[in-house]
């Protein structure tokens, strides 16, 4: 068969470091083969979404990009399939491949979960990735530079430590870029929750995508489980002792053991995220009462802890189901498979939830309702994994309640517009759904015609930011067509007008401030027949929320000139690495 008629391969496999180089099995770095969408790769690797450019600004060195060739079967040849650990650590071409494959795998994961192509937050199509950007214990996403930048630094034993070789760090930074592409306004200063969300969500995705790799779960399971009582007839380690299994026990034996294994030195890049979250015992006090947990990276840890406990709760239930006769032993392979499967499903739920989240002033309660609703839309029956039940319980234990009470069907789900505003029917007669699938003008028309029914603020400037048709597929093949549009409303008021408007309780507004922008907005989720299924919003005229926001902005100096940082992730990670505490500014702004 000639090459012209060969059906194109849809997937390509690359070898990556499964977690980081310090995690070893039988003395060898734990690696994994991962699949990414196949494409016509240029030297770099340089693909349609990602361009790896290996420039080191500290030594001002630009390395030659690696080029890939195809084998006889027309599939790209991974030159590192059988490479030694030494080669993996010392060859910049492998480092470039590692970041490319992890970023692409996550892009594909987001696109699968959302049922559409995702865009970056900048104009271009290709995210630049610099695997050895500078000598610094930092790594970050920069919208302004359209890039992910990974630092390196000398380790304690004289070896160099590369943040680009940490799956956790690469996945975390990629998630920042992906979320920024979906929800640009989540980097705006707002509430503690929104500030913590970007960081927490990036940690959640990094953690779940790590647990979704069976090799990693296998290794995590073997770390401490093997120290338990041995099964009576140990068949090459194929059985695991169930013991007295509890969530706390799983957290200790799997997650904390995993955190212990993760490179101590790499934790300098952005703190010990996994450890900190795993050690955060369930209690509402962190979320509700603690000043310390209002600081973004600590706030993010609450989100990770709640999701981690939810994950462990479901996994535990599945493990128990694997030993129905209560013999005290279960199959190791099945345990690993269940763990990786649940992590993968939870990851999909979390990513899908982004489409159901309000575009501004996100609270953790909003996110929880979005996760529950997104999953309910595809899996109305929760009886197999009880995932939603477990998440509700876990978030509740950390003091986070769903923003929506839900209906009779299930608690915590977003309500339909009809259920929310039964007396104000929506008007569909002046808009065409076919146009609304892709046309912002048409969606704006719909908003305009229904502004009263949808509770929009009439004096505010309104803008539809995006319209995205999606086709989501469940694991059972069930397909769901939806269109997601999001809009933002902006009201610019002087401090005097703010007070007249009824926003009270805002102290210490800088006296020379001319105008303040108040934002609100929502998402409109249309079903395949063009009917509005959900309108998830945080309105601009929500005075309580605006007061909270303004007070927080004042407290942490956001009205200062120069406070806006376009490389805010760099700064946030720096504070995280320094375990920095929030200090209210008392400067002469």
């Amino acid at each position: 068969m000639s090459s012209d008629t060969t059906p194109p391969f849809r997937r390509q496999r690359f070898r990556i470091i499964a977690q980081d180089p310090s995690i070893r099995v039988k003395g060898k770095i734990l690696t994994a083969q991962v699949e990414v969408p196949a494409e016509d790769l240029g030297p770099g690797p340089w693909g349609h979404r990602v361009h790896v450019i290996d420039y080191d600004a500290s030594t001002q060195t630009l390395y030659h990009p690696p080029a890939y060739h195809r084998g006889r079967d027309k599939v790209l040849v991974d030159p590192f399939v059988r490479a030694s650990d030494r080669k993996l650590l010392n060859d910049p071409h492998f480092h470039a491949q590692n970041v490319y494959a992890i970023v692409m795998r996550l892009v594909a994961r987001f696109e699968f979960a959302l049922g559409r192509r995702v865009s970056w937050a900048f104009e271009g199509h290709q995210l630049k990735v610099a695997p050895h950007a500078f000598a610094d214990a930092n790594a970050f996403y920069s919208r302004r530079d359209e890039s992910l930048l990974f630092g390196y630094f000398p380790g304690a034993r004289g070896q160099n430590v590369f943040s680009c070789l940490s799956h956790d760090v690469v996945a975390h930074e990629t998630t920042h870029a992906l979320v920024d592409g979906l929800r640009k306004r989540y980097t705006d200063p707002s509430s503690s929750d929104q500030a913590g969300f970007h960081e927490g969500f990036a940690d959640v995705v990094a953690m779940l995508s790590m647990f979704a790799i069976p090799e990693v779960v296998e290794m995590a399971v073997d770390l401490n489980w093997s120290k338990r009582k041995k099964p009576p007839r140990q068949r090459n380690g194929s059985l695991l002792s169930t013991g007295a299994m509890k969530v706390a026990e799983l957290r200790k034996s799997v997650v904390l053991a995993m955190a212990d294994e993760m490179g101590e030195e790499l934790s300098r890049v952005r703190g010990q995220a996994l450890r900190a979250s795993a050690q955060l015992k369930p209690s509402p006090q962190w979320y509700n009462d603690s000043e310390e947990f209002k600081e973004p990276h600590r706030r993010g840890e609450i989100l990770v802890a709640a999701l981690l406990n939810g994950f462990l709760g479901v996994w535990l239930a599945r493990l128990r189901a694997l030993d129905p006769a209560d013999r005290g032993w279960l199959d190791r392979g099945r345990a690993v498979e269940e763990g990786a499967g649940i992590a993968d499903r939870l990851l999909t739920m979390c990513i899908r939830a982004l489409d159901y989240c309000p575009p501004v002033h996100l609270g953790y309660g909003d996110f929880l309702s979005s996760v529950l609703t997104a999953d309910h839309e595809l899996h109305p029956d929760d009886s197999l994994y009880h995932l939603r039940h477990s998440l509700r319980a876990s978030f509740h234990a950390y003091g986070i309640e769903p923003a929506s009470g839900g209906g009779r069907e299930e608690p915590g789900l977003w309500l339909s517009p009809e259920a929310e505003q039964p007396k104000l029917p929506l008007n569909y007669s002046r808009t065409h759904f076919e146009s609304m699938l892709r046309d912002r003008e048409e969606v704006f028309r719909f908003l305009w015609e229904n502004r009263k029914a949808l509770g929009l603020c009439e004096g505010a400037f309104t803008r539809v930011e995006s319209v995205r048709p999606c086709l989501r597929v469940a694991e059972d093949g069930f397909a769901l067509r939806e269109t997601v549009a999001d809009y933002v409303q902006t009201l610019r008021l002087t401090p005097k007008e703010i007070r007249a408007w009824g926003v009270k309780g805002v102290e210490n507004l800088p006296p020379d401030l001319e105008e303040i922008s108040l934002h609100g907005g929502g998402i409109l989720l249309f079903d395949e027949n063009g009917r509005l299924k959900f309108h998830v919003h945080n309105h601009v005229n929500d005075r309580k929320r605006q007061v909270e926001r303004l007070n927080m902005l004042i407290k942490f100096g956001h009205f200062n000139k120069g406070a806006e940082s376009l490389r805010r992730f760099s700064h946030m990670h720096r504070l995280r690495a320094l375990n920095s505490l929030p200090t209210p500014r008392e400067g002469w702004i």
Partner: protein
Amino acid sequence: MPATQRKPQTLTLRAYQVGFGDCFLLTFHYPPQGAQAAFERHVLIDFGSSALPEGAKEGLMLRVAKDIEAECKGKLDAVVVSHRHSDHISGFTRRSGGTGTGDIIRQLQPDVVVQPWTEDPKAQRNATGPTAKNNPGAASLRALTHMQVFAGTVSKHIQDLQGQLGTRRLAQLAFYGETNLKNADAVKNLMTMGRNVYVYHGSRSGLSEILPGVKVHVLGPPTLKQCNAIRQQRKVDEEEFWHLQAAGGQQFTMGSACLFPRATAYRKGQRPPFARWLIPRLLDVRADQLLELVRILDDQMNNTSVILLFETAHCKLLFPGDAQIENWLYALQDSPRAEAIRTLLADVDVYKVGHHGSLNATPKSLWKLFAHKGPQGTPGRLVCIMSTREGKHGSVKKDTEVPRRKLVDALKQGSDYYTTQEVTPKQLTEPLSLPL
């Protein structure tokens, strides 16, 4: 009558014009009492500059040292060094042949040299021991050492970035880098000049015997023991962080071997089209990173400042060095004596404005406490003294200029405000006489 019962009657306060730096000579005048003759006590608080006043000649600091020598008639009673930034200690540097400003001050044989606890060599020796690995206090001191090593690498990075970035940013980097460089000779000179007293919040100042009739309260810096567990853990993290930065800063520069010597790389300076867009941005990022790091370490060094409150029967003088809110928080909020301290601070009569009038070094909660603020003509009005030089630090565009315009306005409005900027280098100082 024992000397301890004598009380000073007046104070001459000399704020020297050293440009961007601090140098204050406090002369306490004790009147004759019975058969006892009058006498004076001289305390020098800081002596350093990181940028001389505009138009000043090279020998300005030497003239200041000689003036101090003359004013204290060859004998200093005490030296107080708020912290180790060059704009506070550069004047203590000696020269071969014994002709440096540090030599002159040394010849004045101060009885006591007061410094923050972070300068205690005993504490620093302990900090390097293996048993000190998880000791927050030790970690904190090691962090300071690493910071200065890192500051020492900044000049090399500036050289690398020369011609690639705007001169303004390079100048900013150079300023922070030089201010935070370790001045080994000044440190050594101070360590061997007189009896050393290393102070912390609530400790004895070591000045009571020298200044009869004057109570000296040490309000800062707090020790790590005085901080809560979270802040202590933070010090351990900081130490590791700065250790990495120092090592990386030294090892990886343009002149060093590249990271992967066996890998093929383009010639230095060569920019193929595919990388042409990103390279300038990465260099820009690198400069931003360096600037961010030197700013963090500058703030942390400022927060080791000694905060002293001199109290006589009728006057209180506050000298906070460059302490910022993180240092002040302990005295004003977290200390078990916070309430008493706030009461003590309410009737401060003379305030040396912190950190040359920067945005963050006069916390508003502190400023609000001062009860002697008032419009011009108010009897017993607060006196504020600032030693600074405009245009060296921060940016007007970002509202971070030093001295900060808004702070200066508030100082002018509520106090009798003096600034060294109004003193010409020729004058050196305009002494201020205060009743005690």
